[in-house]
Each structure stands twice: as C-alpha cells, then as structure tokens.
C-alpha cells in the first residue's frame, strides 16, 4: 500500500512518496526513501515487490550514471524513460520479471520543460500531467482531475499535493507515515 504521486507544474515536477516501509503487518521504518536520483535533473520513484524495487532502481541509476560519465552529457528525461522502459520490457519476458512500478520525474534543461512519466511493471509507459501508482491512484486521480491545470505555479501544485495526502490519510486503512516531497526543476532535485 505504498503511495507514490507525481504532478507537473509550469516549470517543476512535484513527487510525493510514503515514508513507511511495511513487511506483513509490521512497519519496519518510518523514514523510508522510495526514490533514486538517476541524473542531475531526473528522479525515479518506485513501488512494488520488496527487493526488486531497489535492485532495479539502482541498476538503472548505475547505468545512466555510467552513460553520463562516458559521454559527458546528461540524458534527457524522455531518453531515461525510454531506457528504463526497455529494461523493464526485456525483464517482462524473462524467467523472473522485475515487479516494479515507476514514476520518472525530470526537468529537461535543453527544452526547459518538466516531464512526468508513468511506467508500470508490464513496461507500459505514458507521459502525463499527473500520475500515481497502486491504491493511491484510486483516491487521488479524481482530485487531480478536478484541480490540476496546465502551467500552474509551484505553490498551487503543492496545495493540490496536500489535498491528495489529506485524502489518503482519511481513506487508506493503514498509516503510511506521511510522505516525503521532492521537487525537480531547473536547479535539479531537492527535498522539502
């Protein structure tokens, strides 16, 4: 019942991930970070099978960083998504596929545009204005449909994100220990 939500604003992407690490009926950790920074302006947030998630995220992170060092360039968010999707698609038809659902949030410094991609474990991908995975999607997408608009400011975006988290607190049956919020914009990735 992990929560991951992402939404784009005029020149940034806001990503919220729940801080509880749950195993069975126990909460093992209440400051868990379900994200990896794969490039200076791109963040990957993940949920899914424990073990697969971190393994896969760190695998793509290492390969993207290697590419960055070899070519002395930063991959754009669409290019990173294309790479992550192809790795998941390869894995899907292997003996034991990675069961990882992913949001890729990035800021393209060349075109000066924010990007949010939704990728599931089947390697279906879509570029979206706002997205969520798992049960959180059922509660938050209706709110986002109602309030999200193109080119909103960062403050407006944060307000909408707060509405989503409040809704999840009231509706989800177990405590997800709040969310950690990361913002990706022209200055890179920062936690708030």
């Amino acid at each position, binding site marked *: 019942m992990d929560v991951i939500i992402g939404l784009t604003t005029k020149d940034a992407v806001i990503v919220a991930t729940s801080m509880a690490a749950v195993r069975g009926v126990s909460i093992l950790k209440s400051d868990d970070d379900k994200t990896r920074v794969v490039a200076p302006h791109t963040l990957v947030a993940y949920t899914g099978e424990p073990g697969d998630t971190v393994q896969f995220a760190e695998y793509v992170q290492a390969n993207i960083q290697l590419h960055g060092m070899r070519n002395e360039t930063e991959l754009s968010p669409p290019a990173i998504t294309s790479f992550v*999707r192809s790795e998941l*698609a390869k894995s*899907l*038809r292997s003996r034991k596929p990675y069961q990882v659902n992913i949001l890729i949030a990035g800021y393209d410094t060349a075109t000066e545009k924010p990007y949010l991609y*939704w990728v*599931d474990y*089947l*390697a*279906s*991908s*879509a*570029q*979206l204005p706002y*997205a969520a995975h798992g049960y959180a*999607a*059922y509660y938050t*997408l209706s709110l986002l449909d109602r309030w999200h608009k193109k080119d909103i400011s960062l403050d407006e975006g944060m307000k909408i994100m707060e509405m989503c988290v409040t809704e999840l607190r009231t509706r989800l049956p177990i405590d997800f220990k709040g969310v950690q919020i990361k913002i990706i914009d022209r200055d890179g990735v920062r936690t708030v």
Partner: protein
Amino acid sequence: MSDPSSINGGSVVAMVGKDCVAIGCDMRLGMQALTVSNDFPKIFQFNNAFLGLTGLATDVITLSEVFRYKVNLYNLREERKIEPETFANLVSSSLYEKRFGPYFVGPVVAGINSKSGKPYICGFDLIGCINFAKDFVVGGTSSEQLFGMCESLWEPDLEPDDLFETISQSLLNAQDRDALSGWGAIVYIITKDKVVKRLLKTRQD
C-alpha cells in the same frame, strides 16, 4: 480479467473507399477499469503504410519501435519507400517469429500503393496470420461492436469525405458501447497524394 489483450483496452478500424483508405483509433490507456491516460494514440505511420496497434500497451510501444527500426533499415537497403503490401508481410513475419511467446497485439495495416494507386487494408491475429479484406478490418476490445457498426454503415466506393463520416461514426458508436475504449479518437483519411489527420471530440466517460 488478466487476459493480456484486454488489460489496457483500445480499438482500431480501417476502411476502403474509392481510391482512398481510412484508419482510426481511440486514445485510451487503462489498467483494468482505471483510465491512466487519454492521450495514447495507436496509429503509427511507416512511409506509405499506416499501422494501427491494439492490445497490451507495452507490446504496442515495443512493436512500434521495432517496425520503425526495420522500416528505416528497409529504406537504407532498398533506397525506396515501403509499400503497404510489403509492410503487411513484414508485420506478419515479425509476429510469427515470436510464435511460442507472442506479442499480445491485434494489428491493422492501411495504405495506398504509391505505384499502382490501389488501396490496401488488412488485419492480423497475434501470431501474424494476415486477414486481407476488400471492405473493412477491425481490432481491439470493441472489435465486436465495430464489426456491427461497419457492417451496417459501410458501402462500396465511398468518396474521401463520405468515408471519413462512415469510419468516424462506426468508431465513435462502437467505443461508446465499450468501457475499455474511448476518451478521444483519431482518424486518418489517406488518398494518393494527401493524408488528412483529424482529432475527433468524443464523450469523456
């Protein structure tokens, strides 16, 4: 429920008219009943051929990339554009290559042969069996509804404008009776020297 070809939803249809062809698709991407995106077109252009891909979204994306790669290589090797008939055989053999671990798709090809000017449409099953048709072909989760609509609206030798009306009404009324298709539509009307792409306004439920 977990049938791969109806997880994400989506439909395509292609029709033949008088010296023209049309191909249309919906715009939905879903996960079961939840709609994830309403901007997921399923028609891709490869030179003179148009390919509509329905089924499992991951395979729709993968195959569109595979065919882009193969058609680019064809262009370099042959130094000419690929014709719809040739492209249909490329689709067929590429799908049959994965006979015992198939891509879960229902492709449709439409186009006009640039040499002969003859309209061409065909459909496939997931392992590449070609279904050549002189009238119309359908694919996707609302294929049954599309068969009904096409069967009652289509007539031979429609002019481009009338063909547009026929294919649009068939697609729109079929997808309105399917929970897994809809949320927008795109229709291409292809004549020998012109391609018109139209975005249709549709119900948003």
